[in-house]
Protein backbone atom coordinates (compact mmCIF):
# COMPACT_ATOMS: atom_id res chain seq x y z
CA UNK A 1 0.00 0.00 0.00
CA UNK A 2 1.23 3.49 -0.85
CA UNK A 3 0.02 6.65 0.86
CA UNK A 4 0.37 9.74 -1.30
CA UNK A 5 -0.75 12.62 0.84
CA UNK A 6 -2.75 13.69 3.87
CA UNK A 7 -4.81 16.83 4.58
CA UNK A 8 -6.70 18.31 7.53
CA UNK A 9 -9.40 20.94 7.01
CA UNK A 10 -10.95 22.90 9.85
CA UNK A 11 -14.58 23.93 10.24
CA UNK A 12 -13.88 27.19 8.43
CA UNK A 13 -13.00 25.13 5.33
CA UNK A 14 -9.36 26.13 5.64
CA UNK A 15 -6.58 23.63 5.02
CA UNK A 16 -4.69 23.67 8.31
CA UNK A 17 -2.32 20.82 7.62
CA UNK A 18 -1.07 19.02 4.54
CA UNK A 19 1.69 16.54 3.99
CA UNK A 20 2.86 14.60 0.98
CA UNK A 21 4.84 11.38 1.02
CA UNK A 22 5.50 11.36 -2.69
CA UNK A 23 9.15 11.37 -3.73
CA UNK A 24 9.88 14.76 -5.34
CA UNK A 25 10.66 13.17 -8.71
CA UNK A 26 7.16 11.68 -8.93
CA UNK A 27 5.17 14.63 -7.67
CA UNK A 28 7.13 17.12 -9.77
CA UNK A 29 6.35 17.76 -13.40
CA UNK A 30 7.61 15.02 -15.73
CA UNK A 31 11.15 15.39 -17.00
CA UNK A 32 10.64 17.72 -19.90
CA UNK A 33 13.34 17.56 -22.57
CA UNK A 34 12.55 21.11 -23.68
CA UNK A 35 12.85 24.14 -21.43
CA UNK A 36 9.45 25.20 -20.10
CA UNK A 37 7.47 27.36 -22.49
CA UNK A 38 5.76 29.30 -19.76
CA UNK A 39 8.27 30.82 -17.39
CA UNK A 40 5.38 32.31 -15.47
CA UNK A 41 4.02 28.89 -14.66
CA UNK A 42 7.45 27.90 -13.45
CA UNK A 43 7.70 30.91 -11.22
CA UNK A 44 4.68 29.83 -9.21
CA UNK A 45 6.06 28.26 -6.09
CA UNK A 46 5.54 24.64 -5.16
CA UNK A 47 3.64 25.73 -2.08
CA UNK A 48 1.13 27.64 -4.20
CA UNK A 49 0.45 24.59 -6.32
CA UNK A 50 0.05 22.42 -3.24
CA UNK A 51 -2.39 25.02 -1.91
CA UNK A 52 -4.40 24.82 -5.12
CA UNK A 53 -4.54 21.05 -4.78
CA UNK A 54 -5.80 21.39 -1.22
CA UNK A 55 -8.56 23.74 -2.39
CA UNK A 56 -9.61 21.34 -5.12
CA UNK A 57 -9.65 18.45 -2.67
CA UNK A 58 -11.75 20.39 -0.23
CA UNK A 59 -14.22 21.35 -2.93
CA UNK A 60 -14.52 17.75 -4.03
CA UNK A 61 -15.08 16.24 -0.62
CA UNK A 62 -17.44 19.05 0.34
CA UNK A 63 -19.64 18.47 -2.73
CA UNK A 64 -19.56 14.71 -2.41
CA UNK A 65 -20.35 14.84 1.30
CA UNK A 66 -23.38 17.03 0.63
CA UNK A 67 -24.47 14.75 -2.20
CA UNK A 68 -24.18 11.66 0.01
CA UNK A 69 -26.11 13.37 2.80
CA UNK A 70 -28.86 14.36 0.43
CA UNK A 71 -29.26 10.87 -0.99
CA UNK A 72 -28.42 8.67 1.96
CA UNK A 73 -29.98 10.69 4.76
CA UNK A 74 -28.41 12.95 7.36
CA UNK A 75 -26.85 10.05 9.24
CA UNK A 76 -25.02 8.84 6.14
CA UNK A 77 -21.32 9.54 5.82
CA UNK A 78 -19.11 9.76 2.80
CA UNK A 79 -16.27 7.24 3.22
CA UNK A 80 -14.13 7.13 0.10
CA UNK A 81 -13.98 7.32 -3.65
CA UNK A 82 -11.69 5.62 -6.13
CA UNK A 83 -10.54 6.57 -9.61
CA UNK A 84 -8.33 4.56 -11.93
CA UNK A 85 -5.21 6.11 -10.39
CA UNK A 86 -5.82 6.85 -6.74
CA UNK A 87 -8.23 6.50 -3.85
CA UNK A 88 -9.38 9.27 -1.54
CA UNK A 89 -10.45 8.49 2.03
CA UNK A 90 -12.50 10.85 4.12
CA UNK A 91 -13.28 11.10 7.81
CA UNK A 92 -15.20 13.88 9.51
CA UNK A 93 -15.37 14.43 13.23
CA UNK A 94 -18.41 15.75 15.07
CA UNK A 95 -16.76 19.17 15.26
CA UNK A 96 -16.54 19.34 11.45
CA UNK A 97 -12.84 18.67 11.37
CA UNK A 98 -12.12 16.85 8.11
CA UNK A 99 -9.34 14.37 7.50
CA UNK A 100 -8.50 13.41 3.93
CA UNK A 101 -5.98 10.85 2.74
CA UNK A 102 -4.92 9.93 -0.77
CA UNK A 103 -3.63 6.40 -1.33
CA UNK A 104 -3.17 3.98 -4.19
CA UNK A 105 -6.24 2.20 -5.53
CA UNK A 106 -5.58 -1.14 -3.83
CA UNK A 107 -5.67 0.30 -0.31
CA UNK A 108 -8.34 -1.05 2.03
CA UNK A 109 -10.67 1.28 3.91
CA UNK A 110 -8.59 3.82 5.82
CA UNK A 111 -11.43 5.15 7.92
CA UNK A 112 -10.14 3.60 11.11
CA UNK A 113 -6.64 4.87 10.31
CA UNK A 114 -7.95 8.43 10.00
CA UNK A 115 -9.90 7.92 13.21
CA UNK A 116 -6.71 6.74 14.92
CA UNK A 117 -4.88 9.83 13.70
CA UNK A 118 -7.63 11.96 15.19
CA UNK A 119 -7.66 10.20 18.55
CA UNK A 120 -3.99 9.39 19.07
CA UNK A 121 -2.30 12.31 17.36
CA UNK A 122 -4.68 15.24 16.94
CA UNK A 123 -6.30 15.06 20.37
CA UNK A 124 -3.09 14.11 22.15
CA UNK A 125 -0.65 16.57 20.59
CA UNK A 126 -2.75 19.45 19.27
CA UNK A 127 -5.87 19.67 21.41
CA UNK A 128 -4.11 18.83 24.67
CA UNK A 129 -1.31 21.28 23.96
CA UNK A 130 -1.91 24.26 26.26
CA UNK A 131 -0.02 26.58 23.90
CA UNK A 132 -2.09 25.60 20.88
CA UNK A 133 -4.71 28.16 19.76
CA UNK A 134 -8.41 27.27 19.50
CA UNK A 135 -8.52 28.13 15.83
CA UNK A 136 -5.64 27.05 13.68
CA UNK A 137 -5.35 29.97 11.30
CA UNK A 138 -2.80 29.10 8.63
CA UNK A 139 -1.96 25.85 10.35
CA UNK A 140 -0.88 27.52 13.59
CA UNK A 141 -0.50 25.05 16.41
CA UNK A 142 -0.80 22.01 14.19
CA UNK A 143 2.73 22.03 12.91
CA UNK A 144 4.29 21.04 16.20
CA UNK A 145 7.13 18.59 16.39
CA UNK A 146 5.34 15.82 18.26
CA UNK A 147 2.35 15.79 15.91
CA UNK A 148 4.45 15.80 12.76
CA UNK A 149 6.81 13.15 14.06
CA UNK A 150 4.00 10.93 15.28
CA UNK A 151 2.11 11.26 12.01
CA UNK A 152 5.14 10.50 9.89
CA UNK A 153 6.01 7.44 11.98
CA UNK A 154 2.41 6.21 11.91
CA UNK A 155 2.07 6.57 8.13
CA UNK A 156 5.47 5.04 7.40
CA UNK A 157 4.49 2.13 9.63
CA UNK A 158 1.49 1.50 7.42
CA UNK A 159 3.37 1.60 4.13
Amino acid sequence: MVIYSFYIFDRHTECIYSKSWLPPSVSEAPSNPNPPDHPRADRRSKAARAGDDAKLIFGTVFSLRNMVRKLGGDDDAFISYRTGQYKLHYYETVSNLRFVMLTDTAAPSMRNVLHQIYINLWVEYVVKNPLSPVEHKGGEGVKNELFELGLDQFIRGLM
Partner: protein
Amino acid sequence: MTVFALIIINKAGGLIYNRTFHEGGLNKISTNDYLVLAGTFHGVHAITTRLNPVKNAGGDRTSTSPSVPGAANIVNRPEPSSGLEVLESENFRLQCFNTMTGTKFLLFTDTTQANVDVTIRRVYEMYADYVMKNPFYQLEMPVRCDMFDRKLLSYIREINNR
Protein backbone atom coordinates in the same frame (compact mmCIF):
# COMPACT_ATOMS: atom_id res chain seq x y z
CA MET B 1 -28.14 -7.24 -3.12
CA THR B 2 -30.11 -4.32 -4.41
CA VAL B 3 -29.79 -1.81 -7.19
CA PHE B 4 -31.36 1.44 -5.98
CA ALA B 5 -31.31 3.80 -8.93
CA LEU B 6 -29.83 4.73 -12.28
CA ILE B 7 -28.90 8.20 -13.50
CA ILE B 8 -27.57 9.06 -16.95
CA ILE B 9 -25.74 12.36 -17.41
CA ASN B 10 -24.94 13.70 -20.87
CA LYS B 11 -21.55 15.11 -21.83
CA ALA B 12 -22.60 18.64 -20.90
CA GLY B 13 -23.56 17.66 -17.35
CA GLY B 14 -27.31 17.60 -17.95
CA LEU B 15 -29.55 14.94 -16.47
CA ILE B 16 -31.08 12.87 -19.28
CA TYR B 17 -32.37 9.81 -17.43
CA ASN B 18 -33.29 9.09 -13.85
CA ARG B 19 -35.06 6.02 -12.50
CA THR B 20 -35.49 4.53 -9.05
CA PHE B 21 -35.79 0.74 -8.82
CA HIS B 22 -36.04 0.22 -5.10
CA GLU B 23 -38.00 2.35 -2.68
CA GLY B 24 -36.35 3.12 0.62
CA GLY B 25 -32.79 2.73 -0.55
CA LEU B 26 -32.16 6.39 -1.18
CA ASN B 27 -33.93 9.48 0.07
CA LYS B 28 -36.62 10.82 -2.19
CA ILE B 29 -35.44 14.05 -3.75
CA SER B 30 -37.16 16.30 -6.25
CA THR B 31 -36.42 16.33 -9.97
CA ASN B 32 -34.83 19.72 -9.52
CA ASP B 33 -32.46 18.29 -6.92
CA TYR B 34 -31.60 15.47 -9.32
CA LEU B 35 -30.68 18.06 -11.93
CA VAL B 36 -28.46 19.86 -9.44
CA LEU B 37 -26.92 16.55 -8.40
CA ALA B 38 -26.12 15.67 -12.01
CA GLY B 39 -24.46 19.01 -12.63
CA THR B 40 -22.49 18.84 -9.38
CA PHE B 41 -21.32 15.33 -10.08
CA HIS B 42 -20.22 16.33 -13.57
CA GLY B 43 -18.02 19.07 -12.11
CA VAL B 44 -16.65 16.93 -9.30
CA HIS B 45 -15.83 14.18 -11.79
CA ALA B 46 -13.72 16.63 -13.80
CA ILE B 47 -11.88 17.77 -10.65
CA THR B 48 -11.16 14.20 -9.50
CA THR B 49 -9.44 13.63 -12.84
CA ARG B 50 -7.19 16.61 -12.19
CA LEU B 51 -6.32 15.62 -8.63
CA ASN B 52 -4.28 12.59 -9.68
CA PRO B 53 -1.23 12.57 -7.35
CA VAL B 54 0.84 10.26 -9.56
CA LYS B 55 1.58 12.31 -12.63
CA ASN B 56 3.67 9.72 -14.39
CA ALA B 57 6.36 10.98 -16.73
CA GLY B 58 5.02 11.12 -20.25
CA GLY B 59 8.10 12.32 -22.06
CA ASP B 60 9.66 8.95 -22.89
CA ARG B 61 9.94 8.45 -26.61
CA THR B 62 9.26 5.05 -28.03
CA SER B 63 10.36 3.31 -31.19
CA THR B 64 7.39 1.04 -31.66
CA SER B 65 6.95 1.75 -35.37
CA PRO B 66 10.18 3.06 -36.82
CA SER B 67 8.96 2.44 -40.38
CA VAL B 68 6.38 5.19 -40.13
CA PRO B 69 7.93 8.54 -41.03
CA GLY B 70 7.91 10.95 -38.16
CA ALA B 71 7.19 8.23 -35.64
CA ALA B 72 10.34 9.16 -33.77
CA ASN B 73 8.66 12.40 -32.78
CA ILE B 74 5.57 10.73 -31.41
CA VAL B 75 5.81 10.65 -27.65
CA ASN B 76 4.24 7.80 -25.80
CA ARG B 77 1.28 9.40 -24.11
CA PRO B 78 0.39 8.02 -20.71
CA GLU B 79 -3.07 6.65 -20.13
CA PRO B 80 -5.30 9.67 -19.45
CA SER B 81 -6.30 9.74 -15.80
CA SER B 82 -9.84 8.63 -15.20
CA GLY B 83 -12.25 10.44 -12.95
CA LEU B 84 -14.26 9.09 -10.06
CA GLU B 85 -15.21 5.43 -10.59
CA VAL B 86 -16.58 4.19 -7.28
CA LEU B 87 -17.90 6.20 -4.35
CA GLU B 88 -18.61 4.53 -1.03
CA SER B 89 -20.72 5.83 1.79
CA GLU B 90 -22.21 4.18 4.86
CA ASN B 91 -25.59 3.58 3.22
CA PHE B 92 -24.89 3.11 -0.47
CA ARG B 93 -22.31 2.62 -3.18
CA LEU B 94 -22.14 4.63 -6.38
CA GLN B 95 -20.53 3.24 -9.50
CA CYS B 96 -19.81 5.63 -12.35
CA PHE B 97 -19.15 4.52 -15.90
CA ASN B 98 -17.84 7.20 -18.22
CA THR B 99 -18.27 6.29 -21.89
CA MET B 100 -15.84 7.30 -24.65
CA THR B 101 -18.16 10.13 -25.62
CA GLY B 102 -18.47 11.54 -22.11
CA THR B 103 -21.89 10.22 -21.18
CA LYS B 104 -21.92 9.10 -17.56
CA PHE B 105 -23.91 6.19 -16.13
CA LEU B 106 -24.37 6.36 -12.38
CA LEU B 107 -25.62 3.26 -10.65
CA PHE B 108 -26.58 3.45 -6.98
CA THR B 109 -26.51 0.10 -5.18
CA ASP B 110 -26.35 -1.13 -1.62
CA THR B 111 -22.88 -1.46 -0.11
CA THR B 112 -22.63 -5.24 -0.59
CA GLN B 113 -23.56 -5.37 -4.26
CA ALA B 114 -20.97 -7.23 -6.37
CA ASN B 115 -20.18 -7.15 -10.08
CA VAL B 116 -21.62 -3.69 -10.57
CA ASP B 117 -19.27 -3.03 -13.49
CA VAL B 118 -20.87 -5.92 -15.38
CA THR B 119 -24.34 -4.57 -14.65
CA ILE B 120 -23.43 -1.05 -15.70
CA ARG B 121 -21.95 -2.27 -18.99
CA ARG B 122 -25.12 -4.20 -19.69
CA VAL B 123 -27.10 -1.01 -19.06
CA TYR B 124 -24.80 0.81 -21.47
CA GLU B 125 -25.45 -1.88 -24.09
CA MET B 126 -29.18 -1.40 -23.60
CA TYR B 127 -28.73 2.34 -23.96
CA ALA B 128 -26.86 1.78 -27.22
CA ASP B 129 -29.49 -0.64 -28.49
CA TYR B 130 -32.74 0.98 -27.42
CA VAL B 131 -31.90 4.66 -27.13
CA MET B 132 -29.17 5.40 -29.64
CA LYS B 133 -30.80 3.22 -32.29
CA ASN B 134 -34.17 4.86 -31.79
CA PRO B 135 -34.63 7.10 -34.85
CA PHE B 136 -36.81 9.52 -32.88
CA TYR B 137 -34.30 10.08 -30.11
CA GLN B 138 -32.59 13.46 -30.20
CA LEU B 139 -28.99 13.44 -28.99
CA GLU B 140 -28.26 14.94 -25.56
CA MET B 141 -31.98 15.23 -24.82
CA PRO B 142 -33.88 13.45 -22.03
CA VAL B 143 -34.38 9.75 -22.75
CA ARG B 144 -38.02 8.84 -23.31
CA CYS B 145 -37.93 5.42 -24.91
CA ASP B 146 -40.47 2.80 -23.82
CA MET B 147 -38.38 -0.12 -24.99
CA PHE B 148 -35.39 1.05 -22.95
CA ASP B 149 -37.57 1.52 -19.88
CA ARG B 150 -39.07 -1.95 -20.19
CA LYS B 151 -35.83 -3.82 -20.85
CA LEU B 152 -33.98 -1.96 -18.11
CA LEU B 153 -36.72 -2.56 -15.58
CA SER B 154 -36.89 -6.30 -16.26
CA TYR B 155 -33.09 -6.61 -16.15
CA ILE B 156 -32.76 -4.77 -12.83
CA ARG B 157 -35.75 -6.60 -11.35
CA GLU B 158 -33.99 -9.86 -12.14
CA ILE B 159 -30.91 -8.67 -10.21
CA ASN B 160 -32.90 -7.35 -7.27
CA ASN B 161 -34.87 -10.60 -6.91
CA ARG B 162 -31.80 -12.80 -7.02
